[in-house]
């Protein structure tokens, strides 16, 4: 495993120029070379935040302090997960004209998508901090712990992106299924409500939802200013390692077989 990782990293430095050019290409295509394009991509989470706040504040806002920030924690995390996995899903098939002609590592295409999603997330995070200040959330040192869930979620996103992009090469309706699943997941990730009043069985379901667990970590750090439990740390790490390993194995196993399917 270590050998596989180190060979991956040495390949990565060898293909740095290609990765940079792919990132540039994906950026230009997505934002159509406009500054507004980037602002545009922030618009959707902002509108979502506004609508949720207006609609749900009367139902849930009474019992949840700093409800705007509470909502934003969820949306921020969920949107990153959705953008990264949804975009990553097409990374192989969209670049099939390249990898069937030139021998390049196939994960570069997915990495490019994730660099972009990460930058988008970082920008949203800046807006998030501004909202925290407006909402009167005290900035404590525990904000530094945000690095941890960001890192685990990044690896989980890449892992799930690998699995989805491979599946999408095999089955062309995976994108439809994934969009449906994301919609269900949005309702099941407690973006706008708390799970405190639910039955233990239902709470167990939430405990198995990796996106919810990441959101819970971020809320604990931001809203309560406390260090989450060791158990939560290990859980997030477990999700990340499991998804990343599964993705790597899938890419390794199908590496030379993808071209039969495109």
């Amino acid at each position, binding site marked *: 495993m270590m050998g596989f990782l180190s060979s991956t990293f040495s390949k990565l430095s060898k293909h740095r120029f*290609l990765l*940079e050019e792919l990132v540039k*290409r994906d950026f*230009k*295509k997505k934002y159509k070379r406009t500054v507004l394009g980037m602002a545009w991509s922030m618009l959707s989470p902002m509108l979502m935040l506004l609508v949720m706040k207006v609609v749900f504040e009367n139902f849930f806002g009474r019992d949840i302090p700093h409800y705007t920030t509470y909502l934003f924690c969820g949306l921020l995390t969920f949107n990153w997960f959705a953008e990264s996995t949804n975009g990553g899903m097409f990374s192989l098939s969209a670049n099939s004209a390249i990898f069937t002609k030139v021998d390049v590592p196939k994960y570069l295409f997915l990495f490019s998508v994730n660099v972009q999603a990460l930058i988008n997330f970082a920008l949203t995070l800046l807006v998030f901090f501004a909202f925290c200040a407006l909402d009167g959330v005290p900035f404590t040192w525990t904000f530094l712990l945000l690095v941890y869930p960001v890192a685990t979620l990044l690896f989980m996103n890449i892992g799930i992106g690998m699995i989805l992009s491979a599946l999408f090469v095999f089955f062309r309706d995976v994108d439809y299924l994934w969009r449906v699943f994301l919609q269900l997941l949005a309702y099941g990730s407690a973006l706008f409500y708390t799970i405190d009043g639910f039955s233990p069985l239902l709470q167990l379901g939430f405990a198995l939802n990796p996106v919810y667990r990441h959101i819970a970590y971020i809320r604990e750090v931001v809203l309560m200013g406390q260090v989450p439990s060791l158990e939560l740390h290990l859980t997030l790490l477990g999700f990340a390692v499991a998804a990343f390993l599964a993705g790597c194995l899938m890419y390794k196993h199908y590496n*030379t077989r993808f071209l*039969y*399917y495109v």
Partner: protein
Amino acid sequence: MSDAAPILTCRNVSIRYLTGDFKSIGLKEWVMRCLTGNYKVVDFWADRDVDFELQRGDMLGIIGTNGAGKSTLLKAVSGIMEPTYGQVVRHGRVAALLELASGFDGDLTVKENAYLRGAMLGYTRAFMDATYEQIVEFAELKEFEDRPFKQLSSGMKSRLAFAIASFVRPDILILDEVLSVGDGGFRAKSEAKMKEIIHGGATTILVSHAIGQVRAMCNKVLWLHKGRQIVFSEDVAGVCTAYEAFLKRPAGPAVYPPPASA
């Protein structure tokens, strides 16, 4: 020459190619087809026991009718595919110039596409910075360099593709019907450039349906027929004559040396 270590060795290379109903299929279609027993995967041997070796400076011509397994063999040599059995041993860098005009992005400019392609071919950024001017100059696309690629004619696209690729200095060069592109003037220029690369010491593999080209340029020849190796020989003229005789009577046997009665 022949006592030197081979730069490329193909030992009993056999490639089983998969095709059938799994291409561009959805999950639900797959389930339905499996249930109704209408799901067929066909595998056939695209190449069977292909066995040859090349020394530095060799120029190999691969001949054979459509479906002989030429392109599949080239994919194995360039590392895009792995042989099912047998092995390919390469000593040095391989550059495959296959289907040049595909893999470009219509939304990027000529310059951006040039850099992206350069990165795919394994060039460094410094190398691209240094040679970019020569590349557009050679492709005669200086005045188009900031235009989106989709506005170019297909001739212009292949000119750019050829120009970028022509700066590659591989140890093993693979040419799939790309010896010359463009109109009269550019064709002469590109042929001259190609000869320059070949005479630069690279070992070249040429796939061509122009038997005259193989006769004129190659010192070794490999004749494939329906995946089987009919002959690998240094007697280029003899094999080409036998192949031409075979082409005139497609019903006849693909054999070398030709049957005495012929």
